[in-house]
């Protein structure tokens, strides 16, 4: 996974401002008032135990779920209106790949490139397939991909349109150590190019080296925010929050 160009992001407003975000399912509050700001050129690692609401929060940020209450502002725009131009600035990696099993990796990326109106789409798709190490496998239907290959393709899809705000749900999941390293390098390069990144993970050792801030989500709220700490400090804070039930 290497060698794809990065466009600079210009916008005065913070990429993401969440104020009192609440999301309830059948009366159960999965998000119980999340307040969070993500600035340009920042990588925020979102940690939390299973069921803390990390995936729900990312789906709200990706405009796939409407908050039950609270306010989400993306690049200075109220997300309730969710205009198409706003979605163009978001890249979202979910647990699922969003790719069609009967199409090849190349066809899937080309399809999403057309949806996002990516300029020079053919070259961009080829470059991302090479970055993901799928040059040869890219011509095969993805039904036959391994878990790691699907994850690399999904990452390529999320990066395809050079989004200004990347939302990555468990990006290291299923990747081998070499692919993890390449992804970390890529995420650092994106951050340095001015992109904002929010990633959820359980893997502190992989997230800590690239995160500029770490937020711990517990029981639907941001229980703690740490600035640029090492994995040990983050792990200690995480244990304190979860064990203390804050």
């Amino acid at each position, binding site marked *: 996974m290497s060698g794809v160009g990065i466009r600079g992001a210009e916008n005065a407003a913070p990429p993401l401002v969440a104020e009192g975000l609440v999301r309830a399912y059948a009366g159960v509050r999965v998000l119980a008032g999340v307040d969070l700001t993500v600035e340009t050129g920042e990588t925020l690692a979102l940690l939390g135990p299973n069921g803390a609401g990390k995936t729900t929060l990312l789906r709200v940020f990706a405009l796939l779920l409407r908050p039950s209450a609270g306010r989400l502002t993306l690049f200075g725009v109220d997300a309730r209106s969710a205009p*198409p*131009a706003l979605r163009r600035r978001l890249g979202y990696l*979910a647990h699922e*790949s969003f790719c069609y099993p*009967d199409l090849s990796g190349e066809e899937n990326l080309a399809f999403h490139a057309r949806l996002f109106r990516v300029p020079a789409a053919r070259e961009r798709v080829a470059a991302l397939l090479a970055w993901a190490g799928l040059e040869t496998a890219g011509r095969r239907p993805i039904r036959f991909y391994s878990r790691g290959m699907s994850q690399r393709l999904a990452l390529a899809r999320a990066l395809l349109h050079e989004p200004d705000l990347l939302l990555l749900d468990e990006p290291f999941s299923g990747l081998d150590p070499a692919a993890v390293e390449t992804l970390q390098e890529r995420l650092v390069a994106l951050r340095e190019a001015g992109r904002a990144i929010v990633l959820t993970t359980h893997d502190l050792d992989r997230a800590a080296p690239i995160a500029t801030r770490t937020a711990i989500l517990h029981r639907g709220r941001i229980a703690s925010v740490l600035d640029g700490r090492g994995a040990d400090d983050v792990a200690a804070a995480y244990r304190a929050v979860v064990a203390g039930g804050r």
Partner: protein
Amino acid sequence: MRGALVIFRKDLSIEWRTREGVSSVLVLGLLLLVVLTVAHDAPPEAAPALAPSFLWATFLFTGLLGVQRGFLLERENDCLAGLLVSPIDPAAIYVGKLAANVALLAVMQLFVVPLVGLFLHLDLMPVLPALLVVLALGNFGFAALATLFAAISVRVRAREVMLPLLLLPLLVPLLIGTVSATRSVLAGGLALATDAVTVLVAFDVIFAVAGWLLFAYVVRD
């Protein structure tokens, strides 16, 4: 509408590669026609009266299968969410899926209509242009409503049961209109089917506009 075209082409591309949708609706259509023909064992003079019900009953059940499959494509790997995070209007997703469903159902009609003529010993060639108008209106109206409801049912449990339960009651006016129009066409031409065709046009317009307007609310959580 560029997004709609991209989705339409993608659906056709997948269908061309797998042929799962077309083959399943064609086989089901053939089986339904055989069952109906054997069950009625109709004399030749009864054929014009039976043909509309054969045609549209077959269309209805095979259409349900085809439309449902069209949305199951979007369920695997949560591909529908992939469309929803893209910078296209949800209405464009509706139009793209609608166009793909209309195309699939048209292929099915191309197969079923000659078989109805064959099984009932009915010469459909003299009325074919008028019949094509009724077939197109029935196809579009069915697809307009079914595309919207397939998007609803694909997100719920027991989706195989839910789509017919939700859809069939609402399709009754379309079914009455298409059967009536087809009967009139077989009896003498499109001029005799004015009232029924008016009902079909109204149905098509109402549910296409409803689908266009409501689709965003149906697919977004």
